[in-house]
């Protein structure tokens, strides 16, 4: 009998130490039946890409509240592609100004969740993104 569970990497890149949101999302995704690998704080883009590869995740969720998303996201996406992980979907959660969202989407980011996002919406979007 084949079983498949959606595997998600939740990572906190850079020096941002506020992890409550990341943990709330991790728990919500767990309660939705997904397997969530949480990396902890102060991850470099290289560490995140390495973890994504080893864990063969379907999705990477980046928690960024420091405003450094325009520097970190492109770098991480580049590394994922370089490792051959073309199909991994990347989501960003945290503090991202609306005007940056189109640029991030153009880079290939599947979705951006701000502080008001509901866990139901996150779960729904993650499921849809992974299926496609």
């Amino acid at each position: 009998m084949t079983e498949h569970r959606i595997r998600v990497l939740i990572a906190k890149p850079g020096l941002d130490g506020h992890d409550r949101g990341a943990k709330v999302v991790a728990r919500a995704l767990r309660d939705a039946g997904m397997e969530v690998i949480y990396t902890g704080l102060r991850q470099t883009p290289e560490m995140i890409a390495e973890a994504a590869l080893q864990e063969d995740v379907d999705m990477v969720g980046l928690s960024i509240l420091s405003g450094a998303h325009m520097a970190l996201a492109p770098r991480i996406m580049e590394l994922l592609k370089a490792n051959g992980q073309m199909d991994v979907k990347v989501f960003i959660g945290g503090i991202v100004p609306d005007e940056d969202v189109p640029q991030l989407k153009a880079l290939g980011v599947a979705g951006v969740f701000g502080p008001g996002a509901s866990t139901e919406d996150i779960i729904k979007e993650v499921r849809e993104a992974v299926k496609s």
Partner: protein
Amino acid sequence: MIQTASILEGNRLALARLLTQVENNSTEGRAALAELFPHTGKAHLIGVTGAPGTGKSSLVNQLALHYRKQDNKRVAIVAVDPSSPFTGGAVLGDRVRMRDLSGDAGVFIRSMATRGSLGGLAQTTAGMVQVFDAAGFDIVMIETVGAGQSEVDVARLAHTTLVVEAPGMGDDIQAIKAGILEIADILVINKADRPGIENTEKALRSMLELAHPTKHVFKHHGIYMNDAQGLKDNESDASFWIPPIQKTVSIDGQGIAELAEHIARHAERLRVSGCWASRERTRLGSEMEALLQEALMNQFREKISAQKYNRIMSQVFERSLSPWEAVKRLTENNNGRTK
């Protein structure tokens, strides 16, 4: 199969993807395992178990660092965490403690959820370990869920099983759960810088003396005997092993080199005594049994009609049929012969 060749060559993406196939118990995964099986049997499998909060992940982190720095051995780590019995999901957080290992191509860390298994490992953990073995990793560490009582799976899978304790985890006797001493090849007291370390050590030693024969209890006319077999002098009996107790402080690496020494001695003892081979046989036997059970259940489910099953189940619910009778009827084949 192209996949297995690239894994044997060291392609990490192929390795990661195959691990997923094996974890999901797919046909592709099983076929690849069959191809890779002849390449297994070389790695030293080290199990790490113990109650939550004893520092297992930090310990694994330090041990892996040691193996990398001292011996340049390739290390794979399988870290198992529990799945929710209600939602089926899991948060796998063991990697958080292993940041020192990042960026090292000689290390591969994979997190797994138990997905309903109860013995501390997932059903497919043995298969995952085989993939790492075939891929050429010298050491495969398997870190289990670690509630501290039912983790016998890991003792059957690993060559050397470490049981990790920590001082101050409530009553010392409570901390030493039934069954733990039976599966431990090495007892580790982590967080040895905490108060209560002497009591924990004393309690463990006295438990060990009760569990294993020692010279002063069994010395009889100068001959050391341990059980009905009447073995002589335990120093020369290669298959006799009393679990050593090693204190460690995993956050700074104290005691790790000594622990690695114990592990090496244990591996040597297993090889010399022939126990390595017999453990392999037992382990493969258990794996075969588990696979057989699963295969037979699946075959049964395919053959039995839902109607018949539901009919019989209703009778059990009505209490007009006992579960034993029900199973007898379900396993009767069409000719009416019971199996």
